């Protein structure tokens, strides 16, 4: 009897193409911790993963999205920190893991968590209202000529959007007054309503208003153009947006989207999630999502990931220091 049960188990394992290390598996529902509010980019990504895992039967236990956007996401970081040794929580992290400890003196260090994988890189685009200037050069000229500084919308204070604004000021010499909104969606509608002159939203945050012809992308903050060439609007695809460098303003910034376990996870637990998220990146749901949101595909894990994180951390730290956002 025992042998046959084992055989069935092995066959099932083969069917599920579970690799040889099939040692550990979650026994409780897995919480996917989102360090942002409902409907934001992280939340959407978490729900996409939840759907991809459920539709493709990638895990026996259900996945629960748990929103911990309090204190601009600091809540999620402290939650992960205090959940040391609990392998049923996965954080979907972005650049806040470097920035929040610096700007708000939050006692958190990403090195205390267990890295799983980097799953995507998010772009930043400079947008203005479609009634505004048509190119970056005209935009900068208009900003310089304006009697009161141009209003730049973004998400949160002393975060990636704010840093980018400061850099834009430094590189162009134009002055902006930065308006920190609660979400990228809010920044998008405020731009459409002409309450701000520009914003530095991620592609996903401005996608719909762009398609409706209400905003115009001026340039993307990366060293190369976005790779997706399918038409998004009547005339343009993501690949048609010039880089800021092409337009003469050399500002670059990419934001990671990475998965972390709490500290002190065992190698087996880590391996399970590496495998899980690797499978997620192979699903059609994930691929469609990446293209729609114009995310840059990447999959890093293990040593590569740590090296990437270290470099990214150093870069963010220097940007924050230069912008004067590091709390004393």
């Amino acid at each position, binding site marked *: 009897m025992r042998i046959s049960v084992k055989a069935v188990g092995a066959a099932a394992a083969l069917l599920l193409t579970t690799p040889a290390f099939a040692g550990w598996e979650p026994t*409780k*529902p897995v*919480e996917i911790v989102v360090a942002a509010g409902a409907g934001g980019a992280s939340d959407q990504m978490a729900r996409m993963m939840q759907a991809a895992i459920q539709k493709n039967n990638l895990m026996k236990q*259900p996945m629960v999205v748990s929103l911990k956007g309090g204190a601009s996401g600091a809540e999620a970081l402290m939650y992960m920190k205090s959940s040391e040794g609990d392998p049923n929580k996965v954080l979907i992290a972005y650049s806040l893991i470097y920035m929040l400890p610096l700007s708000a003196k939050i006692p958190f260090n990403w090195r205390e968590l267990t890295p799983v994988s980097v799953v995507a890189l998010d772009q930043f685009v400079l947008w203005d209202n479609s009634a505004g200037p048509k190119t970056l050069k005209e935009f900068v000229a208009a900003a310089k000529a304006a009697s009161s500084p141009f209003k730049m919308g973004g998400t949160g204070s002393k975060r990636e959007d704010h840093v980018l604004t400061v850099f834009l000021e430094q590189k162009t010499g134009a002055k902006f*007054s930065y308006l920190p909104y609660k979400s990228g969606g809010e920044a998008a509608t405020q731009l459409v309503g002409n309450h701000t002159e520009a914003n530095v939203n991620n592609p996903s945050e401005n996608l719909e208003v762009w398609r409706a012809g209400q905003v115009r992308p001026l340039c993307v903050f990366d060293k190369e153009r976005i790779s997706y060439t399918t038409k998004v609007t009547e005339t343009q695809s993501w690949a048609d947006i010039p880089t800021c460098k092409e337009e003469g303003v050399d500002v670059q910034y990419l934001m990671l989207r990475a998965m972390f376990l709490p500290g002190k996870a065992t190698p087996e637990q880590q391996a399970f999630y590496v495998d899980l998220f690797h499978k997620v990146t192979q699903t059609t749901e994930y691929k469609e999502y990446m293209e729609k949101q114009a995310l840059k595909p990447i999959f890093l894990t293990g040593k590569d990931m740590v090296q990437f994180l270290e470099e990214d951390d150093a870069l963010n730290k220097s940007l924050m220091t230069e912008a004067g956002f590091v709390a004393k």
Partner: protein
Amino acid sequence: MSQTELEIVVDDPTAPEDDSPSVVSSATVETVVCLLLLALAATLGYDNWRTGASWDATGPEPGYFPFYLAIILGGGSLYGLIAALLARRAVRETFVTRAQARRVMAVFVPTLLFCAATQFLGLYVASFLLIAGFMRVVGKIALWKSLLTAFVFTAIMFVTFDVAFDVIMPKGPLEAALGR
């Protein structure tokens, strides 16, 4: 449903006697509350002043509103304090009688214990203990009824939250032993 309005009046032999002596007067409680609020206002006000409470070039600093709110709260409680002290001489209104205090404690203390138990034993064990204990000791309901009700209610909550809706509640050693 029946067509007539059913009035439910549970006979309560332990209802508080009306002539129970007063434990503390309203004015005294008001004085204490105002003093506490004053202390809170001072603490928060100081913290905001430290954060920065001025109006700079781009509008108010983070501590600006909370700082002035702390001052308003302080002012309000100071006024309340004086009013309460004056009222104290005039009328003595009862805040709570001894019988009432005993009854409030009869529900407050178990609630407090329940919170503490939740922290260490998990929510489900704590709620079982609270319901069974409260029904038996305070409500004087038969032991088997108390235990059964507590068990059924806790089980329903467990199935609803932890099993059906995946809302994960705090767990203790019992759940760990059962592998949840």
